Every structure is written in structure tokens, then in C-alpha cells.
């Protein structure tokens, strides 16, 4: 089995060409792997047919967890483990616990959502992002199409579809198995033995 990844990369120079192009490409049955743009393009997520993110739900769950943990912590400390008389209040005085509960809820909700996002997208320290075209950070809009997902169409057909939709440039990009592999242990070992940094591994792709 071929473990290497084969992509067709279309470079667009104009935002409107991209927005219309993405819709037309999908209409012709071509599945798009990802689009890289130097700035947020409004409406692109609709054109790509993305579903709404479920991270807010994760944030709510983490927030709720934070509320519960904060209350358990405070009640455990202030009521069960070491009851203290503060200003003659009852040991279990909920209003006093509200500020800490609030802060902990916000803390867990925000960190939880951010880390969930990073984890799901694979943006962890050891991850090696595939750089399709470095100009995506400058002035070009880059469409990546995974050939393995579009087995029904030949490479030539997809190439001509992209050309018809005013792609300035279309070329093939292959990533070897070695490039795709990312292991957290390997990353740590590399870091300590060779001092290989993340940036030098990215440079390898250029």
C-alpha cells in the first residue's frame, strides 16, 4: 500500500476567483483537502461546506466541569477538611465561593476549548504541518486536493478543472511517508539528542 500522500496544489491570485472556484470545484465532484489563505476570506467556510465547529460545546462542558471542581474543592477544603469560622458565617456559605467558582469556570472553559482545538487539529508541539506552498502566507490563495480522495477523476482532469477556474498555477506535490509521520516521543528525543527544532523540520519541506 502506498503510504505516501499525493496532492494537486492550485494557486489562486484573486479572492473572488477562489470563492467562485471553490464552489465550482466541489460542484464537479472534486473533494478539496484544505484551502490556505494569508488572511480570513469571508464566506469561504460556506463555500467549502464546513459544518459549524463543535468547540463551543467542548467549552461549555469544560466550563461546567470547572464549576463542579471549584465547588468540590472549596467545599472539601472549607467545610469538610478544615472548617474555619470566618466572620461568623456558616461553613457552607455559597456566596463566598462564587468568585473562585466563577474564575475557575472561565479558566477551564477557555483553556479547555483552546487545548481541545489544538489537539483535534493536531497543532501540538511535535506536529509537523504540511507546507503546500509558502506563498500562502504572503499573497497567494492555495487550494490543496488530495488525489487519494478523488480516485474517480484522473489527475489531468482535476488539473484542467483548476486551470479553467483561473488557477494561476497547478502543480503536484508529494509527501513521503517519513514527512507525514509525527511522533511526540521522536520529537522529544530529537530535541534532546540533535537539538532539531520544529522550524528546521518545516524547512525540510520547502
Amino acid at each position, binding site marked *: 500500500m502506498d503510504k505516501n500522500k499525493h496532492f494537486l496544489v492550485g494557486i489562486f491570485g484573486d479572492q473572488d476567483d477562489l470563492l467562485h472556484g471553490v464552489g465550482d470545484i466541489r460542484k464537479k465532484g472534486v473533494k478539496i483537502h484544505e484551502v490556505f489563505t494569508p488572511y480570513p476570506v469571508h464566506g469561504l467556510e460556506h463555500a467549502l461546506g464546513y459544518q*459549524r465547529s463543535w468547540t*463551543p460545546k467542548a467549552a461549555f462542558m469544560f466550563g461546567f466541569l470547572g464549576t463542579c471542581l471549584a465547588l468540590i474543592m472549596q467545599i472539601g477544603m472549607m467545610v469538610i477538611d478544615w472548617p474555619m469560622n470566618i*466572620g*461568623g458565617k456558616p461553613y457552607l456559605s455559597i*456566596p463566598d465561593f*462564587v468568585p473562585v467558582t466563577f474564575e475557575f469556570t472561565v479558566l477551564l472553559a477557555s483553556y479547555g476549548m483552546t487545548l481541545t482545538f489544538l489537539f483535534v487539529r493536531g497543532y501540538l508541539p511535535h506536529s509537523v504541518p504540511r507546507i503546500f506552498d509558502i506563498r500562502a502566507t504572503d499573497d497567494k490563495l492555495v487550494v490543496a486536493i488530495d488525489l487519494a480522495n478523488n480516485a474517480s477523476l484522473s489527475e489531468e482532469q482535476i488539473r484542467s478543472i483548476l486551470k479553467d477556474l483561473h488557477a494561476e498555477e497547478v502543480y503536484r506535490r508529494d509527501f513521503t511517508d517519513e514527512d507525514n509521520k509525527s511522533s511526540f516521543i521522536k520529537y522529544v528525543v530529537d530535541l534532546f539528542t540533535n537539538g532539531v527544532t520544529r522550524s528546521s523540520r518545516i524547512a525540510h519541506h520547502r
Partner: protein
Amino acid sequence: MKADSYDIEERFVFSDGAKRSIFTILVIGVVLFVIGIIMLATGGDSSEGGHALAFAGGEGSGSEHGHGHHYTWTDRLKVNFWINNVYFLGLSIVGVFFFAVQYAAHAGWSAGIKRIPEAFGSFLPVALVLMIGVFLWGNHTIFHWTDASLYDKESPNYDEIIAGKQAYLNLPFYLIRMLVFIGGWIAFYYTLRKQSLLEDIEGGTKRFWKMKTIATLFIIFFAVSSSVSAWDWVMSIDTHWFSTMFGWYVFASWHVAGLAAISLTLVLLKEAGYLKFLNESHFHDINKMVFGFSVFWTYIWFGQFLLIYYANIPEETIYFVERLESDFYSKFIFFNLFINFFFPFLAFMTRDSKRKATIIKIVCIAVLIGHWFDFYLMITPGTLKEHGGFGFLEIGLAMIYLAGFAYVVANALSKAPLIAKNHPMIQESLHHHY
């Protein structure tokens, strides 16, 4: 709610159907109101304050009515008038405030809906008449400090603390403040309204910049006057007591109720076939504010409560003792927190719920009712002590005020084009989408 093709010149027609609906609310209100009065006057309903007739005060250290005092149904009537006065005046002025903030902030999304908060301001002159009228009629019931014997050293009622506040709390100065504040708001409102209507005719950006200046001045004036009026109209009821957060508290309550009223009006107008350009993004924006400011209200409410609870100074805690230790009021406190915080917080948390007409209507009506109860809780325990009640009288009078408010606002809405077509940022609002 999808946007549809719209008519930029459209006007709101105050139809017979709308008038009939308002009239129905009025009639039901009047009927409930009369039933409530009859029940109280004949003492038939003892659970709702009928026993108050036999009450002679002087209980405990917390009572400011140290001398004997008989509570009658007219007292309860006066107090209810005052609750509704303050509440509906708040809805009205928050309309103007919202409108002013949009100008000061150069907000574009709201340009197309600005006529709705603008129409809210038309209730201000009515509110001024009601405020002065009810104050002159019921000041001895509502405001303990209006009792002249409190300031007389010879009198057994002499109260050193209240006498110390005489320079501020006296009838002439109080009435002057009321006139200056509401009068100032009315003056700002009519100046803004005039510029806004001239803009419809003239076009250009001249009126926009002028309105921005007036709106900014109004916000500065409102920042001070809203706070001071909260001390005057609400906090001075509990004359011995004071809280430095009270101005914010009343403002927060007014603001979120006003935003809910604006949002509800928008939904009703959209469903009646007006403002067809409105889409989910507009509703999302206004309801984000309802959501955010209900949290803001809770923050202020809790900030005030926690400091008093934690410091535990008797002069300060009396305010919450009167409410939380009371069999009658304590349930309202928890109801208040539930309907004004937990309910909108959970119901409006997701993105989709801020965009659906049904949920918007439920939450906004809940918030409007909830903040009426907030004012009920601010005003009733200090005036009627343990003898407050909640029954047909309260519901009826609130409905009468609601009908009056709706009539005045709808009438003002029909007087001007519904879309400010020459607002410099109107296109941003008409095509608002994200």
C-alpha cells in the same frame, strides 16, 4: 428568519388590529386592577396584604416606621404606581441611550433599526408627568424622608441620620433634580429626533456628525443623571441605607430590560411584515447584548450582595435582611435571580437560540417580567415593609402601563419612516451578514 426584499421608504402603519391588541391588554389590565382594588378594600383576601389594615408598626430596630402606621390598599396602590413609573421610564430612556451609544460608537449594523429605540423615547414626556404626579400624590407613603417631623428636634420622631441628609433630601431640591434629569433627557431626545428626521430629508453626513456630538454629550449627562436618579427614586426609599453600587444596579436593570424590549419589538415588527431586511445576524447582535447585559446585571447584583454579606455591618445588611429573612419577599429574590440570570444565560448561550424568533420572544418576555420584579423587590419592602403583596392589583396596573407604553411607542413609530434611509451607514445595516 431570512431577509427578504424590502422597501426603503416603508412606514409603520398603526393598524386597527394593533390598536385592538393594545386595547385588549388595557381592558384586561383595568379589570384585574379593579378586582384587585375591590379585594383589598374589602379585606377579602387576607393572604395578599388584607391583614395589613390592622397593622400597627414599631417592630424591631430595622423598621424606619417607628411610630404607629396603618397600611391600607391606597398605600399599595401608590407604591405600585411608583414601581411602574420607574420601570417604564427606564425602558424609555434606555431606548434613547441605546440609540446614542450607536452614534457614539459609529455602529453600522444598527443603522436600519434605529427608529425603534428612537420611538421608545417618545414615552419620556408621559413619564415625566406621571413621575411628578405620583410623587406629589404619594410621597408620604413611598418616601419615609418626606415626613416633616423627622427633622424636628422637638418631635419624638426626630431622626438624626435622616436630618443629616436634609440638605440633599428635601422636597424642592428633589423635585428640581427630577425636572432637570427627565427634562434634560427629553431635551436631548427631541434634539436627536429632530436631527434624525432632518437627515431623512437632507441626506449627507452633516446630521450624522451633529448627532454624534449630541449623543456623546447625552451619554455624559446620562452617566451622572441615571446614577443620581437611582439614588433619588429608588435608594432613598430605604432612607437610612445606602449602597455605592446602587446607581449601576438600577442602570443595569433598566438597560437589559430596555434591550429586551427593543429585541422583542424587532421580532414583532418583522413578524408583522415590516423591516424585511432584518436577518439572523441583526437578531444575533441585539440578543448578544441581551445575553451580555443580563450577565452584567447579575455581576452588579452579586457584587452589591457579596460585599454587604461579607462585611456583615448591620446598617448595610438590613436591606437584605428585610428581603431574605422575610417569608414573603425571599421567594422573589430567588425568582429574580433565576429569571434574570440563569434562564437567559442558559437559553441564550448557544448561537442558534439568539437567532430564532420563538426563543427570542420567550427569553425577552421573561427578562422584561424579571426586571419588573427586580424593581418590585427594590421598592416594595422599603415602603410596605412586611405588608407588601402580589396579586391582581400589581398585574393589572403593570398591564395598564404596558398598554400605555405600547400605544405611545407605536404611535411615535408610525410618525416617521421606519428605515432611516439617509443614514451614512445604512447600507452596512441592510447587508449586515456574518
